[in-house]
């Protein structure tokens, strides 16, 4: 792929990092998957609806804390249990119906983030400084501590990589399961879900190697490996090959879907100001 865009695609250049980030998350969804996002995750939420409206029309989209199936949101509001997300839905799962499906392995993908993420894709959404005396008590894990064990694949993500405190060697508290805990691997723990497949950040995209460890596969065009190294606390393994086009420029259809799904720009609340100012589409363009 090439970052140089011809004049006919000038409109395509006018995208911001938050838009492309959501598109990258969307591209991790396959068309034949049942997919779910946790609450307090507008980027993942918008991404699922972008996938549904572009390359994955047949995915089964389970809308977060409403548990509605394939709803068409009026708009994405800033709170995850709101009627705007599911007003005309044909069907809403019960809470227990969703969690049973996730625990028995019927849900193919979930989006997970965290205040801390380790090299095996495990996350801490409970406490910075650990428990029982946290320096900062985070919100908590919701349902992740069970269903991260059994869901088919996880797309792990953060929009806070650059600050250097998110991708860490050791978690202060392990809330959700990646490929390995102190007790051993997923196989040793007896977990049937596939664990983290992708780790997407505002600096780049990782997959997970044979050890279950994150491996940098692609960079956003205005980022280099040194930027990632400076911000990453776990061992940085690098195999830059484009990550199957995950971070390629968004298509007009994808951009239109982002803007239609999220007119309030709720996704932007996940980013620091410096990231919102980024227009990586311009950085590789010959002028």
């Amino acid at each position, binding site marked *: 792929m090439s970052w140089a865009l011809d004049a006919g695609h000038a409109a395509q250049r006018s995208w911001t990092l938050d838009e492309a980030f959501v598109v990258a998350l969307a591209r991790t969804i396959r068309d034949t998957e049942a997919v779910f996002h946790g609450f307090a995750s507008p980027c993942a939420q918008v991404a699922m609806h972008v996938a549904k409206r572009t390359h994955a029309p047949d995915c089964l989209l389970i809308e977060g804390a409403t548990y509605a199936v394939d709803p068409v949101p009026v708009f994405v509001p800033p709170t995850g249990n709101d009627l705007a997300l599911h007003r005309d839905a044909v069907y809403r799962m019960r809470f*227990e119906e969703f969690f049973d499906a996730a625990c028995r392995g019927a849900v193919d993908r979930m989006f997970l983030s965290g205040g801390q993420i380790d090299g095996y894709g495990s996350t801490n959404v409970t406490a910075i400084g650990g428990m029982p005396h946290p320096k900062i008590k985070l919100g*908590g894990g919701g349902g992740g501590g069970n269903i991260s064990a059994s869901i088919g694949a996880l797309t792990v993500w953060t929009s806070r990589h650059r600050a250097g405190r998110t991708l860490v060697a050791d978690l202060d508290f392990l809330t959700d399961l990646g490929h390995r805990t102190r007790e051993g691997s997923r196989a040793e723990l007896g977990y049937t879900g596939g664990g983290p497949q992708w780790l997407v950040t505002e600096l780049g995209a990782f997959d997970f190697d044979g050890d279950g460890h994150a491996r940098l596969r692609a960079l956003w065009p205005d980022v280099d490996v040194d930027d990632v190294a400076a911000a990453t606390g776990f061992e940085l393994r690098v195999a830059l090959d484009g990550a199957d086009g995950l971070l390629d420029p968004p298509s007009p259809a994808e951009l239109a879907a982002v803007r239609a799904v999220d007119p309030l720009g709720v996704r932007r609340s996940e980013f620091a100001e410096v990231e919102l100012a980024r227009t990586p589409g311009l950085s590789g363009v010959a002028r």
Partner: protein
Amino acid sequence: MSFHLGGDKRASLAEAAARVGDGALVALGGGLCARLPMALVREMVRQGRRDLHLVGSAHSIDVDLLIAAGAVGVCEESYVGFEQDLGLAPAFRRAARDGSVEVRESCCATVLAQLRAAEAGVPFLPVRGIKGTDVEGLHPEYARMTCPFTGEELVVVPPLRPDVALLHAPLGDAHGNLHLDQPFVLDERFAHASVAVVATVDRIVPTAELVGAGVVVPGHLVAAVAEVPYGAHPSSCYPGYAYDRPHLAAYLAAATAGGTALDEYLARYVHVDEDTYAKDVDPERLAAWSGSTRAWQELFR
């Protein structure tokens, strides 16, 4: 547990909240910032309730306000916060740090398994995950067990039988039958697993009208029902009212500052009766959501 027999379950808000004792194991209905039993929360604060043990899934101002008012001893919710919109829960965060509330964070699916054990009258149920997480270490009451059929080692959890489930519904009748709209979150499971349901409803209607809307929680699980218009405010209770973002932001500012600012919030919004509260917060404006998409969006800006 026994069913709640008898005809007229109507009660005042004060009578309803008085059914919750100090130290009670309390399940809060609704989820995130929707259909939270806020009038009951405020009334428990007015009555000076202490040492409550809260259980449930993902919650926000209901838990945080009870903690801010000093009413909570143990918090066993799976999440307490204001999502990406308004961020971390200030009183919860402070209480976790200084140890004034014991945080036994749980997981939605674990709470579900524990409620089901209580409903079914069995001494434990297994869960699919948790093993290997640090959540397991917060719960000495969990155990591990080898499955006699498959040989798998699983985490097993004991029943969770709340003394009371506090629910808010848009509609109810005099017998305590309740109509809710989805998502029900854990309200049905709380109702069946708890010793008693204590409910508020925006409106008490004739039974025939309630049956037409659909009974979700039957009256035989309900000990008391109080009619409190806007009883879920500032959380949403559609179709009546949307999420009150400015009010939530004002609470967050007061609870974050603590001290005098928090005292002023409590004096103005909690230590007043619910009629005074409703006049002050002007919830009619939150019905604007149904007028147009633009009007609905404006409520979130």
